[in-house]
């Protein structure tokens, strides 16, 4: 059953919001930042990235702030900050549940 759109974030969406938290970046910079941050575990291809960016922009999570030549940069919005924070909370709960389940298992 697919996840309802923006109810929770997909992994690439989550990392795109993470990359844009401190400063605005263009597409190539977003990919580079994520790759560096995750030691190459998460790699976003342009097809994936430029599918996600308009969706996030439509949702109001990011906004396109400049188009120097053909280079477009993106900035996180307040709504995007909230979405990112909510996703972090959700993931923390997931981890807490997993750890608690592991502890229970060790008692079995």
């Amino acid at each position, binding site marked *: 059953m697919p996840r309802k759109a923006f109810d929770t974030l997909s992994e*690439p969406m989550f990392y795109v919001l993470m990359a844009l938290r401190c400063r605005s970046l263009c597409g190539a910079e977003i990919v580079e930042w994520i790759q560096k941050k995750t030691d190459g575990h998460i790699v976003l291809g342009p097809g*994936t990235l430029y*599918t996600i960016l308009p969706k996030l922009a439509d949702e109001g999570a990011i906004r396109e702030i400049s188009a120097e030549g053909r280079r477009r940069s993106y900035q996180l919005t307040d709504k995007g900050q909230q979405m990112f924070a909510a996703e972090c909370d959700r993931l923390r709960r997931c981890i807490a549940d997993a750890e608690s389940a592991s502890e229970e298992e060790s008692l079995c």
Partner: protein
Amino acid sequence: MLKLNPYYTYQIDAIESWLDEQAQKGLFLDDLVGNLFSFVKGEPKQVRYRIDLKDGVNYTEDQARIADYREFGWEYVCELSSHADIYVSHDPTAVELNTDEETLHDVLDSLLKREIAVGIVGTVLVPLLWLYNLWPDTKGYYGVYDSIVNGLSPFLTIFTVLLILTWTIPMALHLWDAVQTRRRMLLDRTYHTDSRAKKRQALHRSVLATALLILVSVGVLWGYTQSGTDITAEEFGPSITVLFPGHQPASFRPHTNIPDEMFRKSSMPLNRTIYGRQWGREILNADAFDLRQTWTYNADMEHVYIQWLAEKYAAEQAEVKGLEPVAFPDWENAWFAVRTDDSESPTVFSQQLVLQNGKDVWSFSYWTYDEAPQYDLLSAVKAYWQANPTHIG
């Protein structure tokens, strides 16, 4: 070099693998013409062709997207469809175009839902509509046997059914593939195999060839039915003047002597026909082209190539026209009726006769308007037959 695309446009994983394979054979994609990929030859090389799905992307965004992708080492090649572009990368270190299965499916699935809806409509509704439209033709104006003997309906029915199959089979495959593609892990690119591509190309080719053959056959048949030629009243034989001496058709136009009549011979796939049509008119006011129809005479002499069909056709004609069996020397079956219809104005007096012997079927109709006929069609045709027993057949 042109090659038929073996896959549907949304089978992006298979198309990508197939294009990569072509590059390894030294064929590099140049453009797309309809469903044909155009390749240029070169040194075999390991390159990657990838398809970018775009939903609701306008031209400006499209151009910006192409420029953005170039930064990642992907060059635009051509448009696969209005929702998909093909890119190529010669750089083995360039990051893959699509890296997230879920994101890819998000876009593809919304496109596939449309494809599936189109597939359902195409596989079920379109053939039903075709068959529904075909039904009156099959039934024919004067019945099924009339449409078989005097029309192309049996051939058109066969052709239409074949045409429907050439439509339905790819549509059903399209629908099945759309459903399967939704379920598949596209980034694995495991769907394409050489034998699968060849089978699908063979199917597409045979469907196209069948459709083409059908269209050519219909054209040839239609041309054949249009090959009728005019004949003279003498060649025709039992014109109204011959049957009822002294009875002349009116001039077609009041100021000319051109009689209002038509005699032709024609061939249909299942019969050979000569027929005559004559009309009587009373000129009320020649200057004002004011005419009144006084009588109509139709005679068809058909040689049907299949005897049982001739028998069925004649019986059907008699039934449709409401004729009663009568005795007619030398003919296996004869039906005749004399009627007066005064339900509408003018009153119509009709005499209709159908004869059948072996493969020959004769049909005569004589209508007069307002005035009762002075002539007896049955006796006149009997007299004509006795005088001209080998006129047709």
